[in-house]
């Protein structure tokens, strides 16, 4: 390139296009932050810990509280939705991990190489089914099943339905991550375990799985991030809860994402706009949670690469 940097219009224009991606992300964060600003100062730290989401009296004159105009009695707390998000995706992970580990092991070791591509494609296809179609299936098939056989109230909508649908949606993420890792385990490691007299199942569980543990955890964390941000399927099967924490797996719940979808209509009726601003604050909270989870997944998967290269 030499000492003098030549200006290259072609490269610069491509760079300009690629900088639009960080710019879009920056705009999303910046405008949510700006718009939520008043809500953040009004809500303070009680936002995360409050159980009640109360729009206040929208028909009386707004009152001045903590320097901003809000409807009288307005109180925004999102603990119910944070708990709903953590519980539904936590239970989904508990269900998805054994399923995807089992499926990945079976695909990697028990299925003949000729039909493995077909079966692994089917697993991948689970991940591309749109969220709203999962929700439709939940309403048509899952909700009646839960309502008839499990829920004491006979109402199938709730935490369990949301968790099951989420579990199905994230299973392929964990399963395909693990399958790829299992197929990359060096032949020598497998064969030496066989040579020690291990059964085939012992080779998989005691020699291969420990080698891909970090990748597996990375896949699980990635799936957790996906489950937390999932919206439509949860909106359709979770029942929707406000101002009450779930007390059993059959309780209706709202997640942060589903609450944003279902509440904007009522929030718009607030003349001070504080409810819409508080929803922007919720969206920011969801963004930060998923960002943290995805960053963990990224760290774990890069860590896994280091382990692999050290072994070679």
């Amino acid at each position, binding site marked *: 390139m030499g000492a003098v940097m030549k200006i*290259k219009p*072609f*490269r610069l224009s*491509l*760079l300009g*296009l*690629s900088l639009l*991606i*960080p710019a*879009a*992300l920056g705009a*999303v964060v910046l*405008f*949510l932050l700006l*718009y939520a600003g008043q809500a953040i100062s009004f809500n303070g730290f009680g936002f995360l810990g409050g159980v009640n989401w109360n729009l206040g009296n929208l028909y009386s004159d707004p009152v001045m509280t903590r320097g901003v105009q809000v409807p009288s009695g307005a109180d925004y707390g999102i603990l119910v939705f944070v708990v709903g998000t953590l519980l539904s995706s936590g239970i989904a992970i508990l269900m998805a991990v*054994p*399923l*995807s580990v*089992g*499926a990945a092991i*079976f*695909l990697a070791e*028990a299925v003949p190489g000729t039909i493995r*591509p077909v079966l692994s*494609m*089917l*697993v*991948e*296809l689970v991940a*591309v*089914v*749109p*969220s*709203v*179609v999962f*929700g*439709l*299936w939940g309403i048509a098939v899952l909700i009646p099943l839960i309502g008839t056989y499990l829920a004491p109230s006979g109402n199938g909508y709730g935490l369990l339905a949301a968790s099951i649908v989420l579990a*199905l949606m994230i*299973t392929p993420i964990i*399963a395909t991550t693990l399958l790829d890792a299992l197929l990359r385990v060096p032949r020598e490691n497998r064969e030496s375990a066989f040579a020690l007299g291990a*059964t*085939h*199942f012992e080779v998989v*569980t005691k020699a291969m799985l420990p080698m891909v543990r970090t990748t597996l955890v990375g896949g699980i964390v990635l799936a957790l991030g996906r489950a*937390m*941000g*999932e*919206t*439509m399927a949860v909106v*359709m099967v979770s029942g929707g809860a406000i101002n009450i924490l779930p007390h059993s797996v059959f309780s209706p719940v709202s997640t942060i*994402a589903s609450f*944003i*979808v279902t509440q904007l209509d009522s929030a718009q009726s607030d003349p001070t706009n504080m409810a*819409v601003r508080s929803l*922007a604050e919720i*969206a920011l909270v*969801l963004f930060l949670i998923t*960002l943290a989870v995805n960053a963990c997944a*990224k760290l774990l998967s890069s860590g896994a690469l280091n382990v692999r290269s050290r072994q070679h």
Partner: protein
Amino acid sequence: MSAAASIKARRGGLAARRAIIGGLGWAACGLALLLVIGPLVDIVGVVSWHGASAFSVKLFTTVTNGTAGGLLNAIEGTAVITVMAMIIAVPVGVGAGIYLSEYGNNKLGSVIRFLSDVLTGTPSIVLGYFSYIVFINALGWDFSALAASITIAILIVPYLARITELALRQVPNAMREAGFALGASEPAVVFKIVLPGAASGVMTGALLALAISVGETAPLIYTAGWSNYLWNGKLTHEPIGYLTYVIWTFIDQPYAASHALAYAAAFIVMMVVLAINIGVRLVVRRGKAV
């Protein structure tokens, strides 16, 4: 003698136990695979059954009327939003992919790649809410095709960039060097050698992005709105219908006709998404066949 026999017996017992554990383990793994694939088969079956039985000529020729009628407005709206989103996203995504693959092996490239991954991981409802406060509230566009398309474009650009980058990296360096040796300029090498060489990969990315935009709902709810009428060509100040809206709202109506429309819409969306994904995978696999 008896000690040896008992050791032998214990060994035999241990071997039997290990074999049994193995057998149970494989059975559990097989069952897990069935539980992963089973629901997919059931989803496709249920949606196809109800969806196909709701098909009629009227479905494709008339607009929705309340929660009954046809789906023409929704099909048109999804097509409009998807095409406009692709028009916005493909140049940006492919351009970014070219930059990252050809000139992005530096700090700046890593930063862009990282932020692109962050955007991929951002829940789509967050993007939808951002668009709501910016395009609908601040810019005053009202629910509109343009707001919806820009939101979907933001959603799919990182995918396009990543897949384009991966496809371009598959093109051997020798081909680039051959081009430069012939005196070709950088744009000529990129557009006449690298991009054609990776055309199928870039097409794959575009098709997958298309499938994502057809199946999305959350980012459209507060950007597209909903309309019972055909699109009148206005980019702003005019709400537009889309197929996924029909699925999640009409299924909550108490009428059989609404349910039929929801299933029909789900069937169309699911078929487009699955056809694209299966097609792409079959082509990619054939290309990679040894």
